[in-house]
């Protein structure tokens, strides 16, 4: 690791001061715009002053400036204050030319706030750059190289990368946990974390309690927008700051209000049972939505009661630690890859995936890769053509029949067969190499995250959100799980609960078993019933047949008589339809139970289960 001596800092300051002064002396609008006032002020924190590295500039930055900027900036008329000498031999440019360009470039760097340097902001189209935006966004690889140069990268040490979610919501009075541990150093150096509140509503006095391990807690006393910045340091270089916008609401934004749980605040006095209280319908629906999306089944009454007193975010966090959730996730992947029936994994390491996922011992992309590398996937997709086609289609979303993809298909098949071949600019010579290379593509993250978003929201992800998510997932595979959590907690997910959806077939079968028999189906039961459920375009008749079969099986837990009809009717509505009965419904159902001998608890249950409302969630 490179250490900066005090001398080198002073030299750097001298360089900046000298060139900065001459630059500020020019002080006129030009194609590159005004150069920055580069001299650090007297109170500069010397430890944070960046010393750009000439050798790194020579090898990495100079060729990029030549290709992106020299077109305008090598001509004195259009260069404005930033004149670059063209590099005659790109492979071995003369040191003198590079040194001159280095000096010219330093004028557009800010040694105190390198991430805000004009070189970078102008390249993104800011600060009246005559040439407009050179890079579409900050994830462009050439921009990243220039940013690393600005942050002081050398051949032996590159700056770390601070990573934070772009946006979070919180409630005033409840602390918000911040997690900066996805930040990373490309050289594997240890990191120190620095948190700052850089923007706040007027009059607010937020507090930020940070620990050394990259975690922090934010407490706010006023609603409004707060901007939190995380910067990380690898003992030599600082990252650019990662900013996160935190919106604090008094009532939790679009979320249903949190309702006190079964215990009152003092922990002594018990609240009335759920069915006796006036319940918030959105909260009930959200609990059911999460259960069906994550566990592929409806919640039991006790589970509804348990979560009703929690916030949505608390519920998401707790559920994602449960193996049952990852069991359902695993089954969804097997279904996606059609590893069903005789191709379904029966034993081996794959069986432990849900547990490892629940304990965060394996990342989501690694888990998918384990499935694709398994003997079961291989058996399901035999031969080079099928295997390569299916992996490309299902992992990257490639349409292999398209002419432009034929070369990729051919290369993949060749690699699968053991021939040394290049695929996506990477050399490999085996089936395993092929899978590894496919999973290393950014497109894998794009395809996977598109799928995840659609699973949760039943809508397509917007390109901007996708782009940001992909950048995070590519930088660190642990981000998939973080994104999964964020999306479940996000407004889009919460708001979507207002619109009912059809229960998909497998969650429907599992819910039917839980609602009638108070147990989930065995795999064999599910498999045999699932195929039948998928067999009709309008599944209503087969759903009714199956409901009737379970109802009449004698294995359910229904009382012969409802001794407390109000409670019975209320509880069936809550657990089966995620709402309380309307006064009209309560009157009709309770009245029928009390007065009509033909109306038994079984009839009530059947009425609700065979209703159109039960088909959705």
């Amino acid at each position, binding site marked *: 690791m490179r250490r900066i001596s005090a001398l080198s800092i002073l030299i750097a300051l001298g360089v900046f001061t000298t060139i900065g002064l001459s630059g500020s002396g020019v002080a006129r609008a030009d194609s590159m715009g005004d150069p920055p006032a580069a001299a650090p002020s007297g109170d500069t924190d010397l430890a944070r002053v960046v010393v750009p590295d000439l050798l790194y500039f020579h090898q990495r930055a100079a060729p990029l400036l030549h290709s992106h900027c020299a077109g305008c900036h090598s001509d004195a008329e259009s260069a404005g204050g930033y004149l670059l000498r063209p590099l005659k031999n790109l492979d071995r440019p003369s040191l003198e030319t590079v040194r001159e360009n280095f000096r010219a470039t330093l004028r557009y760097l800010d040694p105190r706030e390198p991430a805000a340097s004009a070189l970078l902001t102008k390249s993104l189209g800011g600060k009246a750059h005559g040439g407009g935006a050179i890079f579409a966004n900050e994830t462009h690889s050439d921009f990243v190289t220039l940013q690393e140069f600005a942050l002081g990268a050398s051949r032996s040490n590159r700056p770390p990368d601070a990573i934070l979610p772009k946006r979070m919501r919180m409630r005033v009075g409840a602390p918000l946990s911040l997690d900066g541990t996805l930040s990373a150093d490309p050289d594997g150096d240890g990191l120190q974390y620095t948190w700052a509140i850089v923007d706040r509503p007027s009059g607010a006095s937020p507090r930020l309690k940070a620990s050394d391990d990259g975690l922090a807690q934010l407490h706010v006393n006023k609603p409004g927008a707060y901007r939190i910045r995380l910067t990380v340091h690898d003992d030599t270089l600082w990252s650019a700051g990662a900013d996160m916008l935190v919106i604090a609401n008094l009532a939790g934004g679009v979320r249903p209000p949190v309702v006190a749980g079964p215990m009152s605040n003092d922990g002594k006095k018990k609240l009335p049972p759920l069915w006796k209280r006036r319940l918030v319908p959105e909260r009930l629906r959200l609990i059911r939505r999460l259960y069906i999306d994550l566990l592929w089944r409806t919640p039991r009454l006790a589970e509804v009661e348990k979560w009703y007193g929690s916030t949505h975010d608390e519920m998401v966090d707790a559920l994602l630690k449960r193996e049952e959730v990852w069991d359902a996730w695993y089954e969804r992947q097997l279904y996606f890859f059609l590893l069903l029936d005789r191709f379904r994994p029966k034993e081996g390491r794959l069986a432990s995936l849900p547990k490892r996922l629940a304990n965060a011992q394996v990342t989501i992309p690694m888990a998918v890769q384990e499935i694709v590398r398994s003997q079961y996937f291989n058996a399901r997709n035999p031969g080079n053509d099928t295997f390569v086609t*299916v992996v490309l289609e299902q992992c990257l979303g490639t349409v292999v029949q398209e002419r432009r993809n034929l070369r990729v298909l051919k290369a993949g098949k060749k690699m699968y067969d053991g021939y040394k071949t290049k695929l996506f600019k990477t050399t490999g010579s085996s089936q395993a190499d092929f899978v590894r290379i496919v999973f290393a593509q950014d497109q894998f993250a794009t395809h996977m995250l598109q799928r995840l978003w659609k699973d949760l929201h039943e809508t397509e992800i917007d390109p901007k959100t996708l782009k940001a998510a992909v950048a995070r997932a590519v930088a660190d595979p642990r981000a998939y799980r973080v994104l999964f959590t964020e999306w479940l907690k996000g407004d889009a997910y919460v708001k979507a609960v207002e619109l009912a959806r059809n229960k998909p077939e497998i969650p429907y079968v599992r819910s039917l078993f839980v609602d009638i028999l108070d147990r989930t189906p065995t795999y064999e039961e599910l498999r045999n019933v699932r195929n039948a459920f998928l067999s009709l375009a309008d599944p209503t008749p087969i759903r009714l047949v199956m409901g009737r079969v379970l109802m009449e099986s004698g294995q359910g837990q229904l009382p012969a008589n409802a001794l407390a009809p109000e409670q019975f009717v209320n509880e069936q509505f809550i657990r089966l339809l995620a709402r309380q009965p309307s006064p009209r419904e309560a009157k009709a159902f309770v009245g029928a139970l009390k007065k009509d001998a033909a109306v038994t608890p079984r009839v009530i249950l059947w009425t609700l289960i065979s209703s159109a409302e039960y088909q959705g969630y």
Partner: protein
Amino acid sequence: MCIDYSRRGFLKGSGVAMMGLPWLASPAFAKKKFKTKHVVMVAFAGGVRSRETIEKPANIPNLMRIAEQGVICPKIDVMNNGHFGATMSIFTGKREFRGIRENERGENPTVFEYVRKGAQLPADMVWLSTSGGAQQRNLVYSGHEDFGEKYGANLIDADGVFNTEFRKVIDSFGRPSVPTDKEIEVVGKLRDAMQPPPAMASGVKNDAKTIDRLQRYILQEIAGKTARITGPGSSDARAIQVAVSVLRIFKPTMLGVVLQNADIAHGSFNAYENVIKRADEQLGVLWDSVQADPSLRDSTTIMVLPEFGRDRNLNQRNGLDHGDNTPQLRQVAMVGAGPDFKQGRVISSAMKSIDVCPTACELLGVKSDHVDGKIMRSILS
């Protein structure tokens, strides 16, 4: 009548078709009223070569029997774009590119949507019977904004419902009773008191009466012979058996059937031939049931064709793959018969599998605006 499937016969057929061309282009033809009131479209999918069908009539005596009353079209061009894509092409009249494991609906309207929308039919008049696989379920409607689920077909995947496994599940819990009149009455009263269900994307929906008929039919068939069909080609046999039942119960305007067992050819040529023979046998049953029903006999048109063929040569397993792009793969034969078809003819003019959808729509008097295929006028009388 025997079909002359010799070179001379082909030439004769071609000549007839050529001579008919000027007349076919006349406006009088476009205004023609057809007798067809029901169309049965069978995708003999899974990859079936003409060499094992019309070039080996002993394998398909029943299809040849149907052809005697209609036509054989030996030059149907197809694309080698995967079973799913190629099958979808037959039903949409457009070339469809779909992945091997892709499980999404297409963007182009299917023949079912054209017929339901064009003829303003309820769901129980348009059906698809398939032999299994989640992909085939996507054929019942598309994601097209002007069509879609509200014009989708009813689907029964026979392999999923009428199989031993589902019957075992039912048996393990005990067969349910039929609801009594009293129960129907009290449940109806309670349901009337319930608030209307929230709106949601609903897919294909039937009315209460159709749902009731379907429930009864499912319970009967689970106990009946369809669930007991086993062995190679059993999924296809069940799909055709369901099609026979659907024709009997609902007498639909449009009925699609999708087979798939012929793909066993990858591993065994002999098994592949046996699948063809078994499907032919069942298609004979279907044809006979149409002929035996006075309400269907003179108004039903049937068209049977594979989605594509298979390779010219056997693979290392003595099976047949599909990927060599030879004419054996890219050209298949269609057998068709109906009140508006020529009788006992071999029509050797070149046509495409995407022509079947617009032809079916034309016969039923509905528009098919989004197709790329053309009406197969040369097969019409």
